């Protein structure tokens, strides 16, 4: 498969989960494992441009497909606009949910470019922030979209 534009190839057991492939085979540790049961969204990545929970996808299902992780967003020192908005709005507390939140938020704006606050909240329903820092996360997504909160 291609991860962040780089071909990554390995022989794996069919039961290998995509999140483990990303963390262990590709050594990209930005994608976190939170609940491991498709609930928390910490492991959200893009598979062919759409947000998915990589703990609920087998690595073999992503064979020959395109994966983007949090490490694939910035262009050198230049952050992705969503990362920039998260920094500006201080949209993180402990930071554990942040990579998944950013990936889910980018996918949301691809589908709904100028969402309302409600659409942002609904669009991020698959991502939990255990610090309960949702207020600034929603603010950051609205800022990145150019929508008024």
């Amino acid at each position, binding site marked *: 498969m291609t991860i962040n534009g780089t071909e990554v190839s390995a022989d794996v057991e069919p039961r290998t989960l995509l999140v483990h492939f990303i963390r262990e085979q590709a050594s990209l540790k930005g994608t976190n494992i939170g609940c*491991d*049961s498709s609930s928390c*969204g910490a492991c959200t990545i893009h598979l062919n441009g759409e947000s*998915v929970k990589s703990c*609920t996808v087998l690595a073999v299902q992503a064979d020959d497909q395109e994966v983007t992780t949090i490490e694939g967003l910035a262009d050198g020192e230049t952050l992705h606009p969503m990362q920039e908005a998260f920094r500006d709005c201080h949209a993180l507390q402990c930071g554990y949910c942040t990579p998944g939140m950013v990936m*889910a938020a980018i996918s949301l704006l691809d589908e709904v470019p100028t969402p309302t606050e409600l659409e942002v909240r609904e669009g991020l*329903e*698959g991502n939990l922030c255990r610090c309960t820092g949702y207020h600034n996360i929603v603010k950051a997504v609205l800022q990145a979209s150019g929508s008024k909160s």
Partner: protein
Amino acid sequence: MIPAAFDYQRADSKEQAISLLSEYGDEAKLLAGGHSLIPLMKYRLAAPGVVVDVGRISELSYVRDEGDYLAIGALTCHREIEINDLVLANTGLLAAATKQVGDPQVRHRGTIGGALAHGDPASDIPSAVLALRASFIIEGPSGEREVGADDFFTGFLETALEPEELLTEIRVPKVPNSTWSFQKFNRRAQDWAIVGASVLIADDQCGVGLVNMDSKPVRASLLEDAIVSGASAEEASELAAEGLEPPSDINASTEYRSHLARVLTKRGLQESGK
């Protein structure tokens, strides 16, 4: 959590999928989007010897206008159904129920066929296809057959599908001049429904499918009959749980689920203009 070991086979066509199912029989499970099967495998509640991945059979991902019904390919993902113009224009109830499935990440991967073939009474989609009187096209080694939604769900996580058969298409009738409502009661945003209700009202027709109100997806048939006979929403909704055996679990008792069914169907009927 890691699933138990299994052999993986990828099918590139429905014929190949059926042939692999015939070869492995009971040992095999079909993998579509994987959002029912993979969690079950991770919890080790399912440990199939062979997983047949049908997720890339693109010929089974479509929504077509067939005149008096919409034909939806079994591998069409929830997200596509949620925003599809044909679905929104003709069977808005299905779009509304689909939009309530899990969360956006789940809806990017999960498919309508996978959700239906799983036969989960707690799933939102079966209630909508029951209310809409949809039918299912099932293909196997001996050809194709069509099964109505009422006959498709046979028990807890059990359907009319035989081990060597593949669900290929869902046919959803267009109901002219219909109004509808989807009601879901849950504790947190992405949770399964504690109880849900799909309500469809047309000139001389009433369809009400229920979520989590029996060991399999069911219709509130006594309620439907009452509406067709002219009962008010208030009167008919009293019958919502009649004859059903809702489960009792940590979220709700049988009695509370029955109460919710009455309240949600009343809201649904009223929202549909009754």
